[in-house]
């Protein structure tokens, strides 16, 4: 029978053999604990807190009930979902089309277009938003000038309830497609060409080749693209902060912007945490849906 002493000895021996593995993980553990684990636990705990920040009073589901009964939260959710659907779908489709077009070109042109499409995503979102604040400006903006050239009525892009959110979608779409192109063309380059040769011998044409070979084989990358763009879009915040403040009439308010305002302007940290928990589950549900839809293993 084993006694405590031998168990301890054995444990110590295992540990001293393996201690370097843990040692090398140690520095990663500090930021991870402080700024992932603790905030995650705290978000859940605070969402049940009825007292102001720094004090504690068990509030049960009070914060969640307040959030659910807040009509602005549902407007924000609706806006965020619509924005995400349009931007993610738009980016994926545009990136797919551009990738297919690019792929028929030589290396030099391919490199040029990839760099051109990707350039807007390397600068800060703050920079992009400032540029677009000028382009959207009703009096001095390029967009209304272009409309005036073709004698179309001018648009108050960000000031109109109907055009504000679509304007922000256009801005995100114009900068977001580059990443998709880089990912998709990289995946297409990895498809063995003999697969196409074989299909050609079997009499498949261009359209068929795309849907029967290219599309299924780049599906893992499309899934990855969908997941990262969705997570990104669901947290849309900066354009609201800089351009619209969620207006006009809540037309552009997003969940992330509402969380920020609830926490840092109204100082309702409990409610902000409850909204964060909602945001987490919204994104989790969507991610699971994606994986159910297209998360099959692909091998070639």
């Amino acid at each position, binding site marked *: 029978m084993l006694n405590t002493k031998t168990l301890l000895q054995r444990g110590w021996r295992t540990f001293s053999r393996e201690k370097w593995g843990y040692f090398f993980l140690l520095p990663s553990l500090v930021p991870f604990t402080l700024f992932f684990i603790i*905030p995650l636990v705290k978000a859940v705990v605070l969402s049940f807190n009825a007292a102001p920040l720094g004090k504690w009073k068990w509030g049960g589901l009070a914060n969640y009930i307040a959030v659910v009964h807040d009509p602005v939260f549902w407007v924000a959710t609706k806006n965020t979902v619509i924005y995400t659907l349009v931007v993610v779908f738009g980016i994926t489709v545009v990136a797919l089309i551009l990738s297919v*077009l690019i792929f028929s070109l030589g290396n030099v042109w391919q490199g040029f277009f990839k760099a051109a499409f990707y350039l*807007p995503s390397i600068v*800060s979102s703050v920079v992009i938003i400032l540029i677009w604040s000028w382009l959207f400006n009703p009096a001095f903006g390029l967009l209304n000038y272009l409309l005036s050239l073709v004698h179309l009525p001018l648009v108050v892009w960000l000031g109109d309830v109907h055009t504000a959110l679509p304007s922000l979608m256009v801005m995100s779409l114009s900068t977001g497609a580059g990443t998709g192109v880089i990912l998709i063309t990289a995946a297409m380059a990895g498809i063995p060409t003999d697969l196409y040769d074989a299909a050609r011998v079997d009499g498949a044409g261009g359209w068929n080749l795309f849907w029967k070979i290219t599309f299924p084989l780049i599906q893992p990358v499309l899934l990855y693209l969908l997941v990262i763009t969705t997570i990104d879009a669901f947290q849309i915040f900066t354009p609201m902060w800089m351009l619209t403040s969620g207006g006009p009439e809540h037309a552009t308010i997003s969940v992330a912007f509402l969380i920020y305002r609830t926490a840092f302007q109204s100082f309702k940290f409990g409610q*902000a945490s409850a909204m964060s928990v909602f945001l987490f589950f919204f994104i989790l549900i969507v991610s699971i849906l994606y994986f159910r839809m297209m998360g099959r293993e692909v091998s070639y």
Partner: protein
Amino acid sequence: MANPYRPAFSLRKQFSRLPKVVVYLLLFVWALISLVPIYWMVIGSLKTPSLAIAIPPEWIPSKATFANFRSLFMAAKMGRWTINSLLVSSVVTGIYLITSSMAGYAFAKKQFHGRNLIFWLYISTMLVPWFVLLVTSYTVIVDLGWVNTYWALIVPDLAGPFGAFMMRQFIQSLPSELFDAARIDGCSEWGIFWRIVFPLSAPALGVLAVFSFSSEWNSFIWPLTVTTRDKMWTLPVGLASLQHVKVTNFSLLMAGATYTALPMILIFLFAQKYFLKGITVGAVKG
């Protein structure tokens, strides 16, 4: 074997059904959509404020001036924000490279209990939307007394699952015999990491450095949240604040935007390969 009756088939040919003109036209249209805003920013920064809002606008400015940059530096703490941005981005990148390769080395070459479990748990945290943690991360900063300090800007980003994942992939490809040989020669565990693993990882570290530096340089929401005093702001936060103060001085705003964007554009032009490699890590085989 080559078939004399059919030219060798390549993927390229698969999509060459469309007339070349249409292909180029579509691609050029999207290239314009991507590039015109950036072009508009750069020439806007060189126009005088009145020329910038003239209708019809000048596509090629008749005279260029750097006056906007001068007034920008006089109107705002641009110098201080530049130093803050440079300091935070460089320190974070330097340490991030070390912590990532340490973690990558442990996950790739070290045997210990729970290695795979820890690895997958750590990696899966990348799927947690970070905005969910923003409010409570801020409360951690408050508890630590770090509001308006460099600690708040630097410490949270000193390590992360993306770097660990990338370095693990790379270090796995290094031959273990190398480390065994060094061990026999009496090299310490730390020495093996520092003198062998780290230098050999240079290609992957380049990709990671570009990735880390650019995401720190461009970072906005976190510095906005943990700094309230303008002398602790980074460039994007300072830049966003100009927009609230200045009334439609677009050429000044564009000077600030160009100034903030320029380092990234230069890095991109000179290290494009590293940038593009960074995006496909974790998504594409090979």
